[in-house]
């Protein structure tokens, strides 16, 4: 038995447990170590990765034999770069927690954060449906506590709302997962292993209602229109380092879920109903963008912009063009979006610090003059967010829209309006904070070296990825292609 991936998944949790019982000054440092090991291990996996070899670094053990649940983990072209994204963002957030620890119960905060990373990594590497559901639901727990105990404003209500929304999705998915395993090949012994479920597709009518349950769970998690009701309150309340990770990574688990589970397990239903998802995706794009440029709370601007960006990702996944350009772009865009949205939340923290704690962009203004480095970094990230050509985000959007253009031309045209709107909300936020007259509450100063430790590596990652997105594209191409081809067949 190989245990490599278990180390990747559970190392953060072990560090988190240690951190929970450590003094507040030490806890974030332990957490940092807990995030470095997976980061290094991921870097190794990327260099070691063989794009043609299918599932790699496999761990496959019996777990609950009576139920056919196996502890099966593995890495392929779909999850490799998402794992990398997770470890990078977690690492940056850990540094953030060292630089600016939460006011109280630091150890527990670090524990919950670590648990969150373990859950996300677990969901990404799971090759067993039950295991995936387990990790997927586990993700909810730490963030519930992080909002409820360290949040700002009306945190109890926000936490409750988030839990109720996502629990509805989770329960549906749990039921659907059990049903999938039970109904697949009833004569053979029950199994939850995804590859085996995939090999014996269900009848079309069964697929359809299972498809609905899974799709609901993922759309709520993203969130996509019209399931975004929990998002504003949760985003307003969640502590920023946790939010950076949450928005950057957790929403990607949902996108990944579509590619990993829904398309392979329910190909017929996908074929029948992808148009519904496409329409929801396009509405998410437009609705999210329009909301993003009317909001004044900086967190909500990013929150709604994420709704729009996840809309693009969903559009790509369900474009179902014969070359799989859409899905390929969606995978790339999942990484890109995580990579830009996390630093933006850090930027919000820095802006609030310069504007008397306010997170309302109406209180900002003119910060650039005394903080040129911060302004430059912010500008780079903002331009990447609006998918400026030259950024990896553009490569992703280019492929997504190309995919949509090939299969549903009309929707591609409508979605492209979202590209224009993105430039409005991204630049609006930049201009309102950095440019114009100096706001009344603003006292501008340059970011410190310590803040740079968080922000600069992320910006470098954005630039590096912008120069050479081919790296991630190569890894994912074979898997994505076969996934989409299986549906179209």
């Amino acid at each position: 038995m190989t245990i490599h991936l278990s180390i990747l998944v559970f190392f953060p949790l072990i560090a988190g447990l240690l951190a929970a019982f450590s003094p507040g000054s030490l806890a974030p440092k332990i957490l940092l170590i807990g995030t470095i090991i997976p980061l290094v291990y991921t870097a190794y996996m990327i260099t070691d990765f063989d794009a043609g070899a299918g599932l790699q670094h496999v761990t496959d053990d019996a777990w609950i034999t009576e139920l056919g649940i196996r502890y099966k983990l593995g890495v392929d072209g779909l999850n490799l770069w998402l794992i990398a994204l997770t470890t990078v963002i977690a690492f940056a957030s850990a540094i953030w927690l060292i630089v600016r620890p939460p006011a109280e119960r630091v150890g527990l905060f670090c524990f919950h954060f670590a648990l969150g990373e373990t859950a996300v990594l677990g969901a990404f590497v799971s090759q067993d449906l039950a295991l995936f559901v387990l990790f997927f639901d586990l993700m909810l727990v730490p963030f519930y506590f992080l909002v409820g105990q360290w949040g700002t404003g009306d945190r109890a209500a926000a936490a409750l709302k988030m839990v109720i929304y996502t629990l509805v999705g989770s329960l549906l998915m749990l039921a659907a997962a059990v049903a999938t395993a039970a109904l697949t090949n009833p004569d053979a012994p029950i199994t939850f292993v995804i590859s085996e479920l995939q090999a014996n597709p269900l009848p079309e009518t069964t697929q359809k209602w299972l498809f609905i349950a899974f799709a609901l769970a993922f759309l709520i998690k993203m969130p996509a229109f019209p399931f975004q009701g929990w998002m504003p309150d949760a985003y307003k309340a969640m502590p920023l380092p946790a939010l950076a990770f949450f928005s950057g990574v957790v929403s990607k688990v949902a996108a990944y879920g579509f590619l990993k589970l829904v398309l392979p397990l329910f190909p017929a239903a996908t074929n029948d109903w992808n148009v519904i998802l496409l329409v929801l995706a396009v509405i998410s794009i437009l609705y999210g963008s329009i909301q993003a440029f009317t909001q004044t709370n900086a967190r909500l601007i990013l929150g709604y912009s994420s709704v729009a960006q996840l809309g693009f990702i969903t559009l790509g996944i369900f474009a179902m063009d014969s070359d799989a350009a859409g899905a390929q772009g969606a995978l790339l865009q999942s990484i890109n979006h995580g990579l830009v949205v996390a630093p933006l939340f850090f930027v919000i923290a820095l802006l609030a610090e310069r504007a008397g704690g306010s997170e309302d962009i109406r209180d900002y203004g003119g910060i650039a003059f005394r903080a040129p480095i911060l302004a430059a970094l912010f500008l780079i990230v903002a331009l990447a967010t609006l998918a400026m050509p030259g950024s990896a985000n553009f490569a992703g959007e280019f492929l997504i829209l190309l995919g949509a253009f090939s299969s549903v031309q009309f929707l591609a045209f409508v979605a492209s309006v979202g590209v224009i709107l993105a430039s409005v909300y991204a630049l609006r936020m930049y201009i309102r904070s950095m440019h114009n007259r100096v706001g009344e509450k603003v006292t501008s100063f340059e970011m410190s070296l310590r803040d740079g430790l968080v922000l600069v590596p992320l910006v470098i990652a954005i630039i590096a990825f912008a120069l050479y997105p081919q790296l991630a594209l190569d890894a994912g191409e074979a898997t994505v292609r076969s996934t989409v081809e299986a549906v179209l067949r």
Partner: protein
Amino acid sequence: MSVQTLGWLVLLLPLTGAVLIGLTFKALPQRVHGIIGVAAIGLAFVAAVLMFFGLQDRGEEERQLVSVAWDYANTVGVDAQLAILIDPLSVLMCLVVTGVSTLIHVYSFSYMGGDRGYTRFFAYLNFFVFSMLLLVLAANFFLLIVGWAFVGAASYMLISFWYRRTTATKAGIKAFVINVAGDVGLVLGAYFIFKGTGTLDFLKNFELVGEAFTENQPELVAGCILLLVGAFAKSAQVPFHTWLPDAMEGPTPVSSLIHAATMVTAGVYLIARLHPLFEHAPDAAMVGSVVGCATLLIAATIGLVVTDLKRVIAYSTMSQIGYMIMAVSSAVYAAGMFHLMTHAFFKALLFMAAGSVISAMGGNQDLDKMGGFRKVMPFTFACMVIGGLALSGIPPFSGFFSKDEILAYMVDRGGVYLVMAILGYVGALLTAFYTFRMIFRAFFGEMSPEAEELSHGHLYHAPEPTNPANGEVEDTEVGFPGPEHHIAERAGGMKIAMGGLAVLAIVGGFLQIPGVTSELHHFLEPTFHDSELYETIHPSATAEWIGLLVGAVIGATGIFFAWTIYGKGGNAASFQARFAPIHKVFVNKWYFDEAIDFLIVRPAAWLGRFANSTFERIFVNGALVGGSTGAVRALSAAVRSLQSGYLRYYAALLLIGFSGLGAYFLISA
């Protein structure tokens, strides 16, 4: 060095300059940054010249080469590579861009001397030149779009350069958003082409377009029209032009370089670059010709009445680019590119001269406030007149040869093109008129207080600098109008740059004298070897000379009218009153801003408010959880009383359950 290496060098030198200035912004004094900025572009120009000679050394068939750096997004059938295409057309553009940029960098070295944002300015300006060269050298649609967007971003940063001015930030975002709309047009257009030919590479596309599409096939026409949307947005053609006049918020060297000489001509370059596609889709090309023609007229009429010095030149730029777009869309490629080049010279010169005047005015750009600068700023006046004569098409200045060559070729093509040529001559009359209206008002007549002060030997300083657009007190922390400002009469750098351009504006036209020289036409031949129309449309030298003479007479007439109305003893007010209704339309710029506001901006803002206030609150919050409507409130209260107290225990239970499962696994394994 090989031509390919030189091509990459041309591209990378300005980028290196920008990065170097950016990284050392605290370590080095700002004058050093200015020197780095000028040197980077100067060296790029040298490399471009060497590239030109390297290309000329090769046989005619071998003058189109592609150099690939690496695969950028080469996946699922998409072939996006980091590759440059070097051929006569791109080399010509490189020469114009780096050449004019070098002079404008020299000008900026002096002009921006007193500005607090000096370092930032040179970093941005170098970045712009890099972006423009990327656009020009791109060998495929993908990289073209990247360059296209980069110049948009650079333009945005430079328009908003004085970022404490709300007018500047507004103008910046307007320019950016309209340009992004253009980018989207390009992307969608590229999709149409890509779907047909299966490649993004230009040269392959040119080969395959004939097989992949029938002539005027709807997909190809749609694709080309979408590409034109990109071209129109960048080149400020109707109805995507409204950002350009506002872009005059940027410092004058920016207006000169980006919004006159280089970036705004990108649309012209695009059409010329993609000519095999447009020739295969004549319907789309016709759209380009008509829009170009409409723009040249509309812009010229607005130029007649605008009172802001820089905006007069901005509308003039729009109008002149209208000529170029009309030309290249009508397959009059060499003449269009010729006009692009000469226009770069004389328009950059006009802006620089205007910058000198504006400096002397202490930042005020209002023509109504100017007057009598002729005697106190003789050098600036001379440059302005040279630029003005070239723009008006008076022999032997460069604009005379280039603009009238376009019109002569259009006449030769006949039919509807003849009509457009006639409208082009009408535009020429208006051009000469508004150009000299501007010159007469700024340099003749009563001396303004500012000119008066200059005649006593010192520069005018406003007691408290205000933004002339809205009266807001300026925030001098970020720069202009700073304590010092520079005028051509005193600053060496400005004089050198303006002198250089003045010479080019005079002699630039000699490249193509009908019946005598036709250097540019020959030079560009390898690029247009696949064009059926390149050689067939060719008026005789006599016909061209007749056209030239007509043009010259029209230009002189325009100047004469301007003199009778705005010169000595003219009565502008009564003239204006006589044409009051039409004057109103022109002053309101044909109401384009209002129309866009009404049709696009307001509905979008309204939708946003609706989504936020009504939809989100009632539908999303109300119908699902925690809403305010009665039934939901009661329901959720019930749920809450049941759960809220215990919810954290549930969560803890879930956690323990998971741990138990984990333990089970450990034991059973």
